[in-house]
């Protein structure tokens, strides 16, 4: 029966491919409504190739790995060295800095300075200043571009995440990974083009919503797909108990054949798409387990990342991210939760940085040795930074949320390596030189992917929406 069905299936495909090449008018329209169809012309299994063809500019990066430090790591204990703040440690924070500015948990509290809790040193040829918390990243300092003048507009975690991911604090807008897929399509035929993974260690973690990788008003095929460290790596990826691959294939074949017959009767363009989505689903059922099964990784690679296997750690996720990058996944976002250091910052910084330092450096080195760093953009950073002022009401000294100045870090993807951009003031409060807004950040990463941020739009409620809303300038100063 297998061969019969396989034959029927081939016949069906042939027929609807024949149909697809007839009548360009209806095809164009159908593809507008359902972009997947556009690519159905050469072969129905092809993934969506993206709206922007050709690209607006030459792409420097083909994919992005975004190491999202959820909770908001302190810039003052990572990349932004402020001797003056150390000198003023324990002194009142000058009011000229804070007057009229938003605060979060420090509402109504006395504002005092707190200097860096870890020593800084210069690293690499470029002389990046970094703390002792990041020995591995310090060793690859010359690969890193550090932006020290980030600003955001949202001071609470939930809207700040939403703003960082979608360019607005209002829910229901597409996240940047969804925009990427919509604009560029996927290069990968058996994995989702936008993948999200999470890990946690450190202080009580902030929630992270599926809104952060939602496609909003874009078709939901552009949504990020979450990979899980427990149970099925992707929801419903495993066949039911008692159904082996061959039997699952039989069922998919029967579905495809019968859908093909049905198409002959009703001539429905969506059926072609559905058939290709069932093919993709079936391929994912094999390729996802292959992806997360890391038996073929040599021990020295595992050691380099600092993982022993599927342990749900950031390190393991970084290894998977590399494997996804190799397979053509367009946008990979790894959340590490645990950076919300309102109290006992010293202890929690050690835990959090201990979880991410080695693996971040390993990812950069591993991509480099495979020749992939040049077209993979790596981003490291959180939704905001932390106050130069101490927060002392919750235990040992910590820092509150801070939006006026913080740091992010990038590597690869056509960004200047060993380069530092922008400055905050002497206390690390306000970004004062070469300020980079979240919209600028978005414009820049779209640019690296070959997209003019003003031209990637989607009309919803009568308005042409963009990831960068109505703002954003490419930060030319960091482009290699």
């Amino acid at each position: 029966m297998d061969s019969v069905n396989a034959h029927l299936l081939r016949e069906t495909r042939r027929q609807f491919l024949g149909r697809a090449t007839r009548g360009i008018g209806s095809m164009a329209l159908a593809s507008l409504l359902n972009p997947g169809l556009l690519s159905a012309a050469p072969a129905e299994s092809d993934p969506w190739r993206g709206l922007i063809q050709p690209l607006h500019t030459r792409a420097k990066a083909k994919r992005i790995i975004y190491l999202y430090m959820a909770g908001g790591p302190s810039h003052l204990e990572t990349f932004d060295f402020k001797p003056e703040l150390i000198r003023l440690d324990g002194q009142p924070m000058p009011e000229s800095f804070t007057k009229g500015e938003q605060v979060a948990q420090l509402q109504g509290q006395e504002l005092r300075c707190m200097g860096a809790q870890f020593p800084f040193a210069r690293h690499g040829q470029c002389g990046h200043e970094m703390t002792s918390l990041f020995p591995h990243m310090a060793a690859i300092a010359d690969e890193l571009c550090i932006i020290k003048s980030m600003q955001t507009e949202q001071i609470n975690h939930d809207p700040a995440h939403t703003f960082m991911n979608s360019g607005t604090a209002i829910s229901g807008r597409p996240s940047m990974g969804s925009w990427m897929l919509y604009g560029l399509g996927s290069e990968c035929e058996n994995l989702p083009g936008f993948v999200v993974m999470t890990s946690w260690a450190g202080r009580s973690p902030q929630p992270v919503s599926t809104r952060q990788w939602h496609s909003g008003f874009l078709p939901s095929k552009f949504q990020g797909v979450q990979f899980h460290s427990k149970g099925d790596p992707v929801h419903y990826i495993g066949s039911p108990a008692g159904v082996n691959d061959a039997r699952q294939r039989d069922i998919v074949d029967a579905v495809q054949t019968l859908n093909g017959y049905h198409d002959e009767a009703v001539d429905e363009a969506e059926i072609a798409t559905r058939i290709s989505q069932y093919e993709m689903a079936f391929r994912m059922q094999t390729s996802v387990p292959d992806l997360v099964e890391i038996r073929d990784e040599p021990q020295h690679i595992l050691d380099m990342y600092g993982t022993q296997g599927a342990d749900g750690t950031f390190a393991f996720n970084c290894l998977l991210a590399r494997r996804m990058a190799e397979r053509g996944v367009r946008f990979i976002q790894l959340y590490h939760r645990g950076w919300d250091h309102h109290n006992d910052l010293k202890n929690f910084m050690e835990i959090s940085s201990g979880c991410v330092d080695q693996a971040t450096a390993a990812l950069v080195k591993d991509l480099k040795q495979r020749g992939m760093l040049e077209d993979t953009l790596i981003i490291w950073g959180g939704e905001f930074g932390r106050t130069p002022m101490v927060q002392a009401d919750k235990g040992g000294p910590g820092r509150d949320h801070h939006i006026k100045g913080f740091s992010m870090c990038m590597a690869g993807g056509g960004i200047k390596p060993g380069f530092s951009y922008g400055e905050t003031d002497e206390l690390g409060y306000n970004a004062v030189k070469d300020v980079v807004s979240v919209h600028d950040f978005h414009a820049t990463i779209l640019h690296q992917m070959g997209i003019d941020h003003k031209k990637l739009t989607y009309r919803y409620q009568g308005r042409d929406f963009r990831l960068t809303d109505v703002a954003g300038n490419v930060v030319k100063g960091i482009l290699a």
Partner: protein
Amino acid sequence: MLVLVGGALLSPRAASQEPLPERIEFNRHVRPILSNNCFLCHGPDKNARESGLRLDIREEALAERDGMHAIVPGDLAASEVVRRILSADPDEKMPPVDSERHLSEREIAVLTRWIEEGAAYEPHWAYVRPELADAPAVATPGWVRNPVDRYVLHDLEAAGLGPSPEADRVTLIRRLSFDLIGLPPTSAEVEAFVGDASPDAYERLVERLLASPHYGERMAIYWLDLVRYADTVGYHGDQVRGMAPYRDYVIQAFNENMPFDQFTREQLAGDLLEKPTVTQQVASGFNRLNMVTREGGAQAEDYLARYAADRVRTTATAWLGSSMGCAQCHDHKFDPFTIKDFYSFGAFFADIEEEGVQNNLGNEGLFPPFLTFPDDAQRESLRAYEEKLARLEGLIALHDVPSLDAVEQECRALKREKSQFELGLLTSAITVPAEPRMMRVLPRGNWMDDTGEVVTPAVPAFLGGMWQRGERPTRLDLAAWLTDRDNPLTARVFVNRLWKQYFGVGIARVLDDFGSQGEWPKHPELLDCLAVEFMERGWDVKHMVRLLVTSAAYRQTSVVDGTLKERDPENRMIARQSRFRLPAELVRDNALRVSGLIDLSLGGRSVFPYQPAGYYSLLNFPTRDYPEEHGRNLYRRGVYMHWQRTFLHPGLVAFDAPSREECTAERVVSNSPQQALTLLNDPIYVEAARCFAERILAEGGESADAKIAWAYREALSRQPEAREVEVMRGLYEEHYRQYLEDGAAAEAFIRIGEKPAPEGMAPAQLAAWSSVSRTLLNLHETIYRY
């Protein structure tokens, strides 16, 4: 594929290939071009206006400016606009070269012809009171069953098209059942209808379905999307709010055919009615459906401003089909909404009792004010709590205790305990009116800027005045204004959404924007006729539904020939019916119904069907375990599923259900591998398939072919073709052989799902027939409405 150059063009513009119309009409032909290309800098927003020129108002466009006239009616040579749009000089060309906008040749032709013909303006169609036009003449009145058809046919004839034949009876009963009650017909229902030769069989079927309690469930889905109904608050910890009685209110209101003006009044202002009933208070929970936060460090004033803005967006979208939300930071770019309109509209809601950040009870309490609906035992416990609390508070008030601290502590502990207890009750957040907070215009939407002018409740002036009872307009006045015969938008917006529900695409395509950037309705006279009918029939929703689904237009087949498809791919002309995939909830309901698993009980608390383990692991404050159901609640309809905004059930997400954090007027419809994985592997669909197989074995007859035919009738209401039987028989025989050999696999398979397989059914048989039923439940035809 030239059409695919910009995202904006995702909205198909078949118009660009059309010849110029006989007569250029401002609203239909000119306004969209101006709005799309010019209003951004020469439109309503005074702060963005360039050179002081605005083109949305005729007097302004014609006025002299630096010795020039943008538009001189009838004189192309003297019209600066014409010179600029034709200019080859990049410094002069309009729209500017770097604006990402440009005019097509056809658009230039339309503009110049319009100026040549006198540059007549018209008020925007949607802002004018709808009136009944004379019923249009048609050449073939025999097709017309009711006024809807007359308008449709008139436009078809004008376009040289004719209607499609009526669909066959099986398709009709399936279509009506999905559209009106969201469930497939049973095979007995299909048989009865197909065999009913009486002339009013169709109308009686419609009446039966309209009288079904499941009609309200079907209608509720779209209303709940608009009002963003969910069981949790959305921001940060996404805690439970408890709103199920509000959801049941909506279902019941549709079932009882509550007039839409009353439905509007009770939701916006049920609390302001004289001696509000419990039901009216529950209805007023509409004002409490916005996202709220409990995040530490959040500032109350910041979030109160967000809640106000959210309410403006939702109310304006749901009732007015307007993007008033765009005026939060500046005057609207395309429509005459000012920033003051936005905040004045928000001021209607300034009297709602609420806290900006409600975290005085820790992470776990509910969000007052709310009503509780306890059973008798729970009522008893609640009374005990309240008595104890009253006693303690009395002591504190009188300072009548040796250790005040200890009592205060006890009191706090007790409040916490009570709030824990309340979490287990059926509750519904309601609106309680309080002294209105002062509202200001927030310049650029910035809540920290207190320089803006103070505003009082008002509706946008260009939409007509509002009658008010007292000194300060209230939400009751707002509700009355929304449903006033003179309101140009509410009725149009509502009937247009009904049309979308029954014909697949709105008469005006953009359901949530009736402004300049929306789209001119395809059959404006029809839309106005329906709007007028709706209002003049006392906002009778079932009457409108009946009118639409008994029309000849509705009854057409959705099978379409290539020429018509080519000519009208989106079915804007209604020369046929549309087809569409069932909404997420109904994909599930259909499988449960076909399998016989479904529990059709109505209302009550939200339910927790199977969900992948650990899905809530990223939630915190508090951390959450998923309280998976046992027994019948596993098989309730999708409309009753627990709606966790930040982690909506993956089976619903896969089929495009919105998170309901924001007002959603139209769900996106996608076709993704996640849908295939869900239907293939989600245990609810596997269990449904196995239970369907049990029915096939028990009721399907003797031979394999008979069983297959029976299964097709149950799932698709039709006989299988011979080649379909062949595929299914092949699948069954092969899998039966395999499962006989691999008994363990069969055993493992039939244990999926909580409902046990019946004793005495051979596992290999059951598993093999389940392969057939899984195939059926995965078919495109199964999840589609034709």
